[in-house]
């Protein structure tokens, strides 16, 4: 997101039909696990309001008798026996670790 709030953004804020509150942006930031600066938050609000205004055109459609479609083809669970088919990749996998401790990924303390 841009570093400063553009004039276009400021102009939009006064026109948007959808209003995103500071609390909502805060909450969405928690869900998204993103830490946004104050400027980024203001830009995100404007971006989201503009997108939601646009997405609201879908409300012109009567979908009350339409089932939501997640996949165009029927998708079923695919089960298989839990059999190991690949060799041990421990070293290659750990080679990608940002921080390694012995044969483990090292992370900050997780339990108080």
């Amino acid at each position, binding site marked *: 997101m841009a570093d400063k709030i553009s004039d276009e953004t400021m102009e939009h804020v006064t026109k948007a039909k959808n209003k995103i509150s500071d609390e909502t942006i805060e909450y969405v930031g928690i869900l*998204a696990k993103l830490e946004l600066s104050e400027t980024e938050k203001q830009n995100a609000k404007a*971006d989201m309001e503009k997108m939601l205004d646009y997405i609201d055109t879908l409300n012109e*459609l009567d979908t009350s008798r339409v089932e939501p479609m997640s996949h165009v083809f029927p998708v079923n669970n695919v089960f298989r026996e839990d059999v190991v088919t690949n060799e041990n990749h421990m070293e290659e*996998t750990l080679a990608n670790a940002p921080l390694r401790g012995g044969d483990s990924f090292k992370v900050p303390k997780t339990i108080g």
Partner: protein
Amino acid sequence: MDILSLSAVELGKKIKAGEISAMEATKASLAQIAAEEPRIHGYVTVDEEGALKQAEEIQKRIENKELTSPLAGVPTAIKDNMCIKGQLTTCSSKILSNFKPTYTAEAVKNLQKAGAVILGKTNMDEFAMGSTTETSYFGPTMNPHDTNHVPGGSSGGSCAAVAARECYYSLGSDTGGSIRQPSSFCGVVGMKPTYGTVSRYGLIAYGSSLDQIGPITKDVTDCAAVLTAIASWDKKDSTSVKRADYDFTSALTEDVKGLRVGIPTDYFTDGLNLEVAGAIRAAARVLAENGAVVEEFDLSLVKYAIPAYYVIASAEASSNLERFDGVKYGYRTPEYEGLHNMYKKTRSEGFGAEVKRRIMLGSFVLSSGYYDAYYLKALRTKALIKAAFDKAFESYDVILAPAAPTTAPELGKSLSDPLKMYLSDIYTVSVNLAGLPGLSIPVGKDKKGLPIGMQLIGNHFQEKTLLRAAYTYERATGKEA
């Protein structure tokens, strides 16, 4: 003979006949990369050493008659969102800038089995989110036809590399038009197959219900050959579809007599550039002159495709990109206080603006209180859009349309207004929502010399109909060099 001007299939034949070696072709491609990259920047990684090693081994196996595929020994490039074991796979993102996968994507494996020489990994919009290749962490790719213009996106590096002859063909991925739109902008042939045709195993997911890998090539013959090589049923991808026929090259015949072609009138509205509209109509006339029955019709629901797409794609992206947290691979922020702070800082520093924008939107539309109003509403709209295509395919074998409303925009003009950029996908996103195959083929250039692409859309599993129509068009017009 200019070795670089050969198509992939032509080169494959000459390699098989012993007229050119895989090593000569590989060296020629690497020299072209060295010459063109400062101008194009189509690659994130060029694996010179690896490519030469592959060429040597593959040449031996061709001579031993072990490798008989039409693509054996032909140099290729892979979009940087497909995993190759031990080779940098970045998705053009800072968060994966140091990631080396422990396995290879199935589509790439299929190419390796066919004897492809992989030259490197191509640039893309970060996590395939963008329409210009300008959101790449490594900087934009330039359009080989005019380097002041973008190549399109998100498979912009793959399309530019083919157009600049830095490889003989490439693989791209298409979630909302990411193969077809840059193919149109770069003057190459690109196809998004029917959902489930090419395994997504090892393709780093953006919108899983929409993502599909496909070929980017110099001509229609190459497109059929590459699709034949990469398509397969794969038990490692639960959405993979078992198809009856995997030989797409048999569709390469000049025959569109009686082919019912429909042009959606609602695609030819205000937003469509007049030069593009003219070129598409002229291309439709070529098919008509060769015996196709071309009609106009009203597809309907066109303006709802983009809002439905952005809800669904962003929702899936927000979920798919949760895995990037700085624990097991990729970038980790250098300073943090505790686990949650590490997650947040890693992601905030590791993702670019467009990726964050879509993760935020996706998290919002999936959040309690908004899920029904946005996410389910979009899935219901998707069902309506699919029904509109089903109805169209009762009357037509092929839907003929532009691939994009304009030719390639100038660099630096798109990112400031995301909504406007999203509108450049208006003719391509609905094809992903409905899971259909779509192909883009060059049909001329505008006054500035920038290529225009025609999109052919088929019903599910009708790739061969698209290839036949495209091949007939190509033959009738004389292939552009």
